[in-house]
């Protein structure tokens, strides 16, 4: 196949461009420079025509070339005469210029400037705080509705979420809390062994799990597991206009979608927390028994004498608070989701980040509070 080429000829009545060969986006194409030179303002060309007798096959490569010429000629006020082009080429060019650009439509794609991104993130803090406050308010109103008995959602949804947030999460909670208990035991044992006080491993693990780590680890697990799932579910519903459908059919999205998720998580997280507490203690016992020569009975007695119900209660309250926060973060991000697939991914990520931040911050506050109140 003959490669694409052209030559441009100056005539008394204007320039003539002779096109030849076959033009394809998959093969080499001639440089545009000779045309730019030939049509330069000082050349005095007022008109350009075409001769396509030597033209073979063509595709968009030729169209792109011609569009460049047309744009150049328009900017330099040169008349373009399409008469010499094959009819189907003319047809495509007509099509390309048939619908002019809608005025004001063009937008420059801002690109991915890190600085711009940072600026947008900072400006977003205020909006975010606003959205979170509004969402908290709506949630409270919904809860008030629930208390009055006017909130409507499907009971089967609630059971589904309870199963999902509770029993389904047991394997991962087991694994993590067992390991956390073992880690606590190792860290404590190292220090305590210096005083020959290994038996206090039981105290360290017991108090650590019951008051802090049990609740915090389950909270973080649930933020990554369930909070992200909530955000992705609601985000996808947002993309598919399912949430719009709820709204127009007169269902409150807060009642129907957010409440059951929140109730399920708030009910299940404390239960998981108690389970995690015991798993952690078992992990600690494993380390103490196998490495530090402490009998199971000694370990159990020491744990029981150290812990009282208040320690567990602190953990339980924390777990309840984390449940509210994780559910809110997940649902908020899901409801805020934009209408694209990347927005769903962003919502899920953002739900986890928000959830974990809220957990740690509130945990710090509650720990200070319980210490100050001497609970």
């Amino acid at each position: 196949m003959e490669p694409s080429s052209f030559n441009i000829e100056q005539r008394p009545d204007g320039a003539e461009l002779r096109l030849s060969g076959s033009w394809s986006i998959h093969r080499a194409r001639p440089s545009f420079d000779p045309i730019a030179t030939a049509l330069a303002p000082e050349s005095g060309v007022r008109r350009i025509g075409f001769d396509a007798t030597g033209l073979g096959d063509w595709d968009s490569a030729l169209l792109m070339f011609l569009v460049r010429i047309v744009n150049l000629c328009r900017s330099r006020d040169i008349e373009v005469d399409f008469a010499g082009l094959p009819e189907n080429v003319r047809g495509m060019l007509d099509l390309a210029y048939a619908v002019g650009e809608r005025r004001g439509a063009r937008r420059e794609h801002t690109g991915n400037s890190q600085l711009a991104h940072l600026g947008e993130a900072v400006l977003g803090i205020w909006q975010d705080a606003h959205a979170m406050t509004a969402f908290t308010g709506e949630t409270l109103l919904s809860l008030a509705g629930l208390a009055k008995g006017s909130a409507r959602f499907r009971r089967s949804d609630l059971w589904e979420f309870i199963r999902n947030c509770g029993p389904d999460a047991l394997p991962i909670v087991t694994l993590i809390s067992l390991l956390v208990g073992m880690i606590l035991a190792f860290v404590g044992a190292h220090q305590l062994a210096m005083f020959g006080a290994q038996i206090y491993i039981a105290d360290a693990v017991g108090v650590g799990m019951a008051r802090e780590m049990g609740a915090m680890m389950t909270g973080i697990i649930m933020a990554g597991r369930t909070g992200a799932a909530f955000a992705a579910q609601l985000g996808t519903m947002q993309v598919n206009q399912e949430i719009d459908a709820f709204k127009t059919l007169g269902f409150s999205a807060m009642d129907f979608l957010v409440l059951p998720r929140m109730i399920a998580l708030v009910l299940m997280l404390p239960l998981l927390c108690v389970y995690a507490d015991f798993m952690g203690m078992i992990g600690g016992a494993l380390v103490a028994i196998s490495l530090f020569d402490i009998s199971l009975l000694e370990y159990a007695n020491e744990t029981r004498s150290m812990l009282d119900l208040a320690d567990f209660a602190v953990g339980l309250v924390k777990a309840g608070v984390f449940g509210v926060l994780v559910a809110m973060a997940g649902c908020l991000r899901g409801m805020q989701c934009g209408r694209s697939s990347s927005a769903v991914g962003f919502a899920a990520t953002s739900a986890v980040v928000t959830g974990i931040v809220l957990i740690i911050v509130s945990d710090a506050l509650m720990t200070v509070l319980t210490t100050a109140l001497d609970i």
Partner: protein
Amino acid sequence: MATPPIRVSGLTMAYGDFVIQKDLSFTVERGDIFIIMGGSGCGKSTLLRHLIGLQQPARGKVFYGETSFWEASAREQAAILRKVGVLYQSGGLWSSMTLAENVALVLQEYTDLSPAEIREMASLKLALVGLAGFEGYYPSQISGGMQKRAGLARAMALDPEILFFDEPSAGLDPVSAKLLDDLILHLRDSLGSTVVIVTHELASIFAIGNNSVFLDPDTKTMIAQGNPKELLSCSRDAKVRNFLTRGAEGR
């Protein structure tokens, strides 16, 4: 050009044991605007998915030229699909990319055009479908009709020899649907493409179709084929007449 671009022989489509359509045999000639028609749920879109390599037939063959698509190697299949452009029912645009990026992605992947040329080419394709100036928009920021046209711009990115349309005029107002029909005709005439359209829009079927198959959900096979206008005047099948006359006849 003796071999037709697409030939289907003895095709049976099924999900597990559930047969959707069986014994489909037809030929799409070069330059045809070929309509796959039939009532809702008869398997039109499934047939399209079989043609474009998204779903494997239970039995039968789909020939592209001389090659049987489902017996070809993965490399040959990819080469065939490179010559094919598809406009999906809801556009199928990648929502995390701008319109220009949607069109540009295939160009980056399969041509050696420079980045500047790719930008120009993407603008050209968008201009061809009447979306000049919308390069920087995301699919979620434009209307459904515009998404369809942008989907067409992407389908045309590599100057395909065969264009597939899944319900192109669904969800479009009559004027936009007419414009899209005109665009399809124009592309066929200018580029010599072969066009396969799944649709049940009678206006489009008669306006642009010159060949067709009619799928029937009850007998689970094709009960008519040929030029839709001739089918309207000559077919004796009550179901076909009923469909083509919007239920005015044949009941």
